[in-house]
């Protein structure tokens, strides 16, 4: 197989169907960042160690730097760019901003993805559960304290929003 041969990869990203040229070895992160100009997802190590590239594939947090783009065809990919509701930040994004959960901001997109997956499963996680859910995302700035605070704050916010429509 010619590994330089480009193929069209069709991805559903943040609800939009997008196409880009990929080789068989193009990673999902490369396709997003360089093929689709979705540069919100970050490359910190390019080998699955740091979590900065975390995106959601069918709702699960996945390390985009060690996932092949072509393996994600016809699956639902969500990135940090797809979190906000139009111009309105997602409660998790808002909480990271308010609490100081984002210092340099480089781990933040991946951190948000892992936290998003958690809160979609569990609207009322304990601090330990949050720490477990984020343990694959390295942060070098915060000491994690304010990140855990942010996720707790967002969970409270989301529970309040759910309050009217869903039984708790």
């Amino acid at each position: 197989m010619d590994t330089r041969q480009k193929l069209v990869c069709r991805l559903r990203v943040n609800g939009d169907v997008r196409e880009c040229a990929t080789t068989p070895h193009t990673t999902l992160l490369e396709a997003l960042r360089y093929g689709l100009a979705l540069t919100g997802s970050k490359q910190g190590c390019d080998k699955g160690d740091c979590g900065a590239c975390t995106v959601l594939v069918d709702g699960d947090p996945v390390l985009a730097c060690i996932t092949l783009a072509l393996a994600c065809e016809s699956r639902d990919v969500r990135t940090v760019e797809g979190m906000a509701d139009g111009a309105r930040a997602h409660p998790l994004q808002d909480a990271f901003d308010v609490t100081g959960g984002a210092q340099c901001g480089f781990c933040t997109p991946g951190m948000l993805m892992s936290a998003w997956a958690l809160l979609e499963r569990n609207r009322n996680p304990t601090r330990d559960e949050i720490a477990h859910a984020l343990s694959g995302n390295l942060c070098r700035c915060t000491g994690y304290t304010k990140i855990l605070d942010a996720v707790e704050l967002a969970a409270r916010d989301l529970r309040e929003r759910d309050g009217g429509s869903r039984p708790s």
Partner: protein
Amino acid sequence: MSKPRAPRAAGARPKPATGPARAGMTIPEGRQMPDASRLTPPAHEAGRTGPPNGDAFHTIGKRNRKVEGLAKVTGRAVFADDLTLPRMLHAKLLRSIHAHARILAIDASQALAMPGVHAVVTGRDLPEYFGIIPWTQDEQALCESKARYVGDAIAAVAADSELIAEEALRLIKVSYEVLPAITSIEEALAHPENQVNEKASEGNLSKHVHLEFGPVDELLEASDEVVEAEYWYEGSTHAPIEPHCCVAEYDATGFLTVWSSTQVVHYLHRDLAKVLGLPTQRIRVIQPVVGGAFGGKSEPFSLEFCAAKLSMLTGRPVKILYTREEVFYAHRGRHPMLLHYRTGIRRDGSLTGTDARIAIDGGAYSSFGLVTTYYSGQLLTAPYAMPAYRFDSTRVFTNKPCCGPKRGHGSVQPRFAFECQLDKLAERIGMDPIAVRRKNFIGENTRTVNGLRVTSNGFLECLDAVERASDWKRRWRNLPYGRGLGVAGSMYISGTNYCIYPNEMPQSAVQLKLDRSGRATVFCGISDIGQGADSVLAYIVCEELGLDLRDVRVVAADTDLTPVDLGSYSSRETFMCGNACLDAARQLREQIASTLAERWGVPKGELVLANGMAVAASDPHKYAMTVKDAIQAAEAAHGTLGSVGWYQSPKLGGDYRGGTIGASPAYSFTAHVAEVDCDPETGEVTVKKIWVAHDCGRALSPVAVEGQMEGSAYMGFGEALFETHTFKPATAAHGPGIHHGPSLLDYRMPTSLDTPELESIIIESVDPEGPYGAKEAGEGPLHPSVPAIANAIHDALGVRCDRLPFSPPAVLALLQGSDARGAWERARLGHAGAGARG
């Protein structure tokens, strides 16, 4: 018709007194800072430290968002690797596979012939030496004659893609003559004939400093107890999550633009000019959003020179993104240090003499090493009064990646040793270690034994706070075997007193633009690396002019657009840029105040600018308008509004060679208590919690200050227990100097599950010279983490961890090699006995 203009020339402003000038260098009148009259317009009496609008602050000290916060959480913030330019090429660097080898020949012909390859450069193309300290410039962008560590850069290839560039690297043939490698301090000193760095003055000596203050030997002799011990501080690295990255574009007019993930735009600008042979006015350096630095991006690196040179050769933009492995080679991290201390104490708890001998492993180049060597001794002399102190520090070159300034530059290692010494001394005399620290408190508005001026000092409040929060009095020496508490203290600088290269120009400057739209723009060379530096400037402008935070833009770290600031190192930004910004904002405030005072017929001091409104305090209903209207009134009265503020520190430091290194206009102070839970069977140490009390002067942004305290304590914790930047000895399979694991999996930085609970307690000692009384918070709070944990392990297990890291095998070896349980019991008896005596 011409408008009446208020005189605006600098001569119209009151002239400050000029302090004594530094030897060999004069600072012109008007450039020295500690002059309240220039900074504080007569319109209000708040001075530098008080609120400008009445009794309370409106923005300062509030839990505000950061100016760039929402861009970061929505993925819109643009980091260096997010930049793509039309026709952009990608370059990769070829790195040495030997720790020490002469480069005999490089044949790049096959690489150049490869389709998609556009240019190759080697050391011969960039022969000019550079280095962050002007007196020790010993680096080349690419090694010309010799490689000095595994990973030293040798050649660079620009190609259509990273992949092609990487393949081309494999086609470059380098002929090496392998030389014996120096991999330890001992080898460096024992084999001066095997020289790592030819720029060394002799052998493998990078820098030697010997300073002595007071009768050390006499006082040690007269001590009731003397503790002598040797400590080893292992090397560690910054590991910011963003790898180094830059894009360089050289255009047809001969103008070079470099976007780089640097924390020192100005120094990079200067070194680019030197190495590339371009005048500085033909170079623009821009810092995009930086994804963490911690000192690891405070020097120029090979990538910036290579990308620029390759762009000059190809006429196309060139990007270089380091791999994670290359970030470990770029390093400039914590120096490994071997520290030998003798410290004396009297039975009443007062310290006598301290004698330190320090050997420092510098790696292959100088970096900031001259400063590191001084800092290893100079920054130990507070918060405790030291009647006599001597240090002898030697930095050597070895065939390893170059060490440099990591958060708490040069002073984290000696602080670890000294705070452990204090714990041992306290035990010898049967005194509570917090009481010993209180007893030796140096005080405020004083001078250290080595001549550093100390102004504000909240260290006692820090000790009180951690003692109370940790329930120290009840729990220390009273927890069951395996659990323990430990304390430590420290101090750190709020910026260095002088620029790295001697000059008479300001260290920080701000240009502030304000116009009828009601929007302010701050232009400043300040480097935000995540700590919130840009936001601090916006908060200051809001506080002074009553604007909403969303109506202030900060344009930062762009050499074409912003006045020079020296950059984000030595915890200088809040203090120095903050003062420059306050200076600029108060000039515009004065123009608004004088305009409204005249219009309303009220004294200028009555003016309040807050929450978007300008009012006179005596009758806020009668005299009121929006800030926007007030700005328009001022623009009508004074013409286009704009101001320039700057900061230059006063002459400080001791009157001896090296006496200015360590001098800072203000010092922060910190105390930690750490709680550990240890497993005596395995030697595993779990840190349960660290209480961090930090005197940062006035906290301009409590969220940011807490973030710095937590991040610092976390980073120190990681160094204490997990992180090692170490190298393998030679084996049959490979030579010496191979990194043990240059990846974020092998380099064990703590995850969210490893990190203990961190509780921040802010202590505000309002410094007389800081902006609103602020001091640093970014580096000081790292220092006590390591010794507090070591001292807690002693309280828990009865062993002294004098060598980093405190890993399970290391702690287990200590437990097995001593009567730990007996020592633990004796420590408790000693404490009970002291209690009975007390």
